[in-house]
């Protein structure tokens, strides 16, 4: 996903003189194509995330389109007041890019895990929050972010995520993709959790449970219409995110469903209000904290038993 983003960034830099790339001393060997394509518009500000975001805001006020890159917690949490004031409140045309969604930094531990970045960005008025599910979508999301006028947070995985969507996936800000349309249960996911959600849908299919799979490449603005339609049809929704279950994607879904009157039951799968203190790789932690494909399928089964649309026998 990271490499896909950097491909897009170099193309954007070549095509539009307003595009700048800023980093907080991260991304070894990744900015060279951009530097070649956009000479003079690359800047390493050093290990100084508040300055990274502040400088990006200043460039944006002068009409530039800066992409400010760091590890996800450092560009969202560490620099949050700059994001809040200089970018969101001021409505600056800054594109914040966070690499390492969820627990993708694995063994590096909780300081490097992005379990609260969706919460911190989606709460800010005027912020657009993008969380692509595979490399092809990341590339398109980067283009969409550049074209969109206003603050954007783009949440990337790390590298090596499988291709799960068509290479020419039609990414549009604010629109969820319906990847399966089954009547039994809705699995709604965002970002890198597309992998676990897809695995869960496949597992359920083997048992004759035909699920709807909704992928939200945008967390904000939230595609309420898509979720409500699927919830009304299936009566049961499982949300899946590589993020805390508090205040992130599942919470956004819960807010929408609670006010919709769709009457669907809901289970949120994500990090259960804990830092991932256990030590291990991304896949190990996903399994350990109950976000794996089988765990998502379990959550769906649990709902099917309770779902008003599916009477218990």
């Amino acid at each position, binding site marked *: 996903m990271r490499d896909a983003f950097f491909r897009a960034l170099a193309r954007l830099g070549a095509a539009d003189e307003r595009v700048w790339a800023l*980093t907080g*001393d*991260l*991304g*070894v060997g990744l900015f060279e194509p951009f530097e070649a394509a956009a000479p003079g518009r690359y800047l*390493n*500000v*050093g*290990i*100084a995330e*508040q*300055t990274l975001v502040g400088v990006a805001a200043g460039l944006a006020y002068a009409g530039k389109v800066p992409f400010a890159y760091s590890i996800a*917690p*450092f560009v969202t949490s*560490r620099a949050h007041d700059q994001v809040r004031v200089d970018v969101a409140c001021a409505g600056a045309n800054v594109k914040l890019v966070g690499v390492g969604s969820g627990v993708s930094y694995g*063994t*590096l*531990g*909780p*300081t*490097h895990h992005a379990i609260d970045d969706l919460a911190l960005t989606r709460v800010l008025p005027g912020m657009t929050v993008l969380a692509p599910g595979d490399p092809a979508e990341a590339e398109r999301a980067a283009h969409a972010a550049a074209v969109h006028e206003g603050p954007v947070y783009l949440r990337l995985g790390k590298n090596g995520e499988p291709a799960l969507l068509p290479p020419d996936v039609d990414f549009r800000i604010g629109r969820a993709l319906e990847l399966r349309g089954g009547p039994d249960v809705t699995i709604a996911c965002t970002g890198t959790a597309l992998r676990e959600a897809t695995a869960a849908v496949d597992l359920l299919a083997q048992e004759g449970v035909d699920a709807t799979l909704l992928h939200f490449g945008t967390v904000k603005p939230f595609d309420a219409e898509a979720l409500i339609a699927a919830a009304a049809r299936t009566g049961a929704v499982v949300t899946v995110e590589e993020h805390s279950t508090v205040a992130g994607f599942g919470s956004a879904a819960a807010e929408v469903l609670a006010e919709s009157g769709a009457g669907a039951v809901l289970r949120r799968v994500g990090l259960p209000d804990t830092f991932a*203190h*256990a*030590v*291990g*790789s991304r896949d*190990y932690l996903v399994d350990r904290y109950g976000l794996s494909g089988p765990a998502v399928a379990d959550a769906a089964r649990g709902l099917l038993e309770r779902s008003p649309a599916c009477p218990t026998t």
Partner: protein
Amino acid sequence: MSTSAELRLEADAARRIVLEAALASGSCHIGSSLSIVDILTVLYQRTLRAGEGDRFLLSKGHAASALYAVLARAGVLGEGDVIAGYCRDGGTYAGHPERHVPGVELTAGSLGHGVAVALGRALADRADGRDARTFCLVGDGELDEGSVWEAVALAGHLAPPGLRLIVDANGFQGLGRVGEVLSLEPLGEKFRAFGWVVSEVDGHSHAALACALGAPARRPVAIVARTVKGHGVPALEGEFMSHYRSFRPHERAILFAGLDRIEEAA
């Protein structure tokens, strides 16, 4: 055995743990750990007075393996546990230290946090009438963070007597040489301007380190330790990529070449 020979053996033993753990886990940040093994060895083997409550906070948390290694040498952690449990699925020791690990005083990994926390501990010691010293170690790239300088300024102003800051000046940070990314030299003068006592030492000379770390002072002291990133592994010494390179078991000889050379000479 002379005290200098003893420290040399201790440092080599700690380096071995760092390298074994890196090899077993295939993890990176090896250069960052190797540049502080000598500093931490002197600190834990000579400087810290457990009875007085002296303590150490590693702010550049990505050098966690060096901290685990000296804690193992000091008997706080098990050597085998550190090697087997560092950066592994189901392991105990993450790539950045957390306070729930015995001997770890600071949850670190997000750079720029340590100096303020160390200042807080030093202020608590002064308030409670303890004669303890609080040592904190930062990277030279980490000095880019504004939070470091906020705490440096406040520490100079409040001047708690027990605060000691060690700068691991290895000349490299994430994307290049410190001098090229964001030069903060002359470092010593910057700390002096904020009211600190300053010393500059060869960060691999055990005698110089012991002297600088243990020097009595009644206000905050900054010790600028000039180090070599990757020290002790010829293939990594002074190499920018020592931050990122990881090694597979079949490359063992590359990692241990420096240590084995020392042993053959002894």
